[in-house]
């Protein structure tokens, strides 16, 4: 019995590690989504498309301007974030007083447009993008498995970014303004804070997070126009399970669900894409506002 258990553990230990790596992507993506929802009350369906744009911009920077991975890691989120500013100013800002549904529909339409344009320009099967040489080479030996260096980097980067975002929103003066503005915008405006600009920058920040995840994904996943839409529904589920708008909730849930998904890939691989929805249904029935949400 014990031997059996140990064997199972040995088999699943690598899967747990891999699950955490995937969880890092879920966490980063759902973080951006949660920031946007929490502060703007908009369900950003274009998040997947913006993730994809991040990866493509990294590719363009490398192939058109010769800027390598590390440069892209900073530039790409800035460029895509600037795009977010335009989108917010031109379109999303008109919808704040309306039902969620309209924000969802608008961003869904945007996702269709962006993906369609990229598909026309770059085709569908994707573009090659190699990891930086400093992160290639022999995988790290963890004893029970060999983990490529790049994956370790992904987890570390995601953790740092998530922590930093959480700190900014929960512990700084800027974060305090932001949270106050979501509760009562006119009042905060009356105190002399430029609320519309703050909201715009928040949206841009959320979008930049998606783009950052895109750059991180470029060396390991195929850089193709559909790469975001295969993630988006799962990431939505993560945000909902964590509690809509809860920063900490979405980060923790992202990692946890990556783990659960990883284990499902061993036990019942066919169901690995569905298990998240089973969990979502159960969580919503037991805790209506999600694991970390305030009802």
């Amino acid at each position: 019995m014990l031997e059996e258990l140990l064997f199972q553990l040995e088999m699943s230990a690598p899967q747990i590690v891999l699950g955490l790596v995937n969880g890092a992507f879920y966490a980063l993506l759902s973080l951006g989504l949660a920031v946007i929802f929490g502060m703007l009350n908009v369900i950003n369906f274009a998040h997947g498309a913006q993730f994809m744009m991040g990866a493509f911009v990294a590719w363009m920077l490398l192939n058109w301007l010769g800027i390598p991975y590390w440069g892209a890691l900073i530039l790409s989120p800035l460029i895509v974030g600037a795009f977010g500013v335009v989108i917010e100013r031109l379109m999303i800002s008109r919808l704040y007083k309306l039902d969620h549904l309209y924000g969802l529909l608008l961003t869904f339409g945007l996702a269709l447009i962006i993906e369609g344009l990229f598909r026309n320009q770059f085709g569908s099967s994707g573009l090659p993008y190699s990891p930086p040489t400093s992160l290639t080479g022999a995988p790290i030996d963890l004893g029970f498995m060999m983990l490529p260096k790049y994956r370790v980097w992904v987890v570390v980067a995601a953790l740092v970014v998530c922590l930093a975002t959480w700190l900014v929103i929960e512990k700084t003066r800027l974060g305090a303004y932001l949270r106050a503005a979501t509760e009562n915008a006119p009042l905060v405006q009356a105190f002399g804070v430029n609320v519309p600009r703050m909201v715009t920058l928040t949206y841009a920040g959320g979008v930049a997070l998606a783009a950052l995840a895109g750059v991180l994904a470029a060396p390991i996943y195929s850089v193709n126009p559909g790469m975001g839409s295969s993630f988006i529904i799962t990431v939505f589920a993560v945000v909902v399970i964590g509690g809509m708008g809860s920063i900490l909730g979405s980060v923790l849930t992202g990692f946890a669900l990556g783990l659960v998904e990883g284990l499902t890939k061993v036990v019942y691989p066919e169901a690995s894409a569905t298990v998240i929805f089973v969990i979502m249904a159960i969580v919503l029935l037991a805790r209506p506002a999600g694991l970390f949400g305030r009802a």
Partner: protein
Amino acid sequence: MTIDRRTILGGAAALPVLGALPWRSARAQANNTLKLGVLTDMSGTYRDGCGPGSVAAVRQAVQDSGVTGRGINVEVLMGDHQNKPDVASTIARQWIDRDGVDVIIDVATSSCALAVNSVVKEKNNIMLNSTGATADLTGPACNANTIHWTYDTWMLANSTGGAMVKSGGDSWFFITADYAFGHALERDTGDVVKKAGGRVLGSVRHPFPGTTDFSSFLLQAQQSRAKVVGLANAGVDTINSVKQAAEFGLTRRQKLAVLLMIISDVHSLGLQTAQGLSLSETFYWDLNDRTRALSNKLKSGLGGAMPTMWQAGCYSAALHYLKVAAEMGVAQAKASGAETVVRMKAMPTDDDAFGAGSIRQDGRKLHPSYLFEVKSPAESKGPWDYYKLIRTTPAEEAFRPMAEGGCSLVRT
């Protein structure tokens, strides 16, 4: 808000009216016009392998056939089935019923191919399938109106699977897309492996679509200690699997067998990642003078890319159809799809894509298949110089023997 509601409303009201227009003109067409419909994936994951390139290839075939010089008009239509069988079937019916399309070419993905297969049978039209993979088209689902042109799952399984076992890869583990095409590819390859004396140690099925990370499955493949890891998936899934297999160093101890990969996938992966892979195709641009000449002609229509075997198949199929139709006379060729297919089977094929070939009674187009190995970046001399030819399987052996297919058209 700057957008005027009334203009938009007016525009929306005009849409159905505009939509009604094409019907009227379609039926009034003169009778010496042949209509070729290219039904393909214009917006989804297989777009690069077929899509606009298939349309360009068919247009080139029209030009090369020279039928327009003989007073025959040819019109090429295109449609996007979005990889949805119901959309494919609706477009096919509409083309046949309303637009007077005489032959439907390409039809990517097995499920759409099967859907259009039953439409052309019902309407006595023609499907010349290039991109669909399922060998059922010349097996249980075969009919007198369909010709399966370029390749099929049986050929892929036998060419790649057989060669791998022969070169010592006698234990296999499959990473399979959890859908009918993946299952079929796994089953067929497994049979080949077992027949050649190898063993299948296990398999894992990943959800389709919606899997981006394959590391977990690759790890299970590593733990199986099989000599060969077979990838029974397609398109972006295969690209992601190969990319991550390289990252995890799977290829250091195990061989990777990609069961369906075409040159545009290799292009997308880059040689650095794809080098050393074995794969099977029926066409490569750099095979001989004829394929090089054809590819150079097609290149401009493909935005500088080299044609894939799917696109080459569309070219070859359209060319052969036009030859036969010109010989029969347009009125005759339009009269009955099944009749025209009989004539197409009777006439030997010859074109720049596949050379000399023939079409079998069960609708299988025969030509050689090739096993290629992907070159390393050092071996590659220029853009698109990707493949080394390892082995050629002659036309008679490349495809499933007619008796084993279970096609009802085959009379013994």
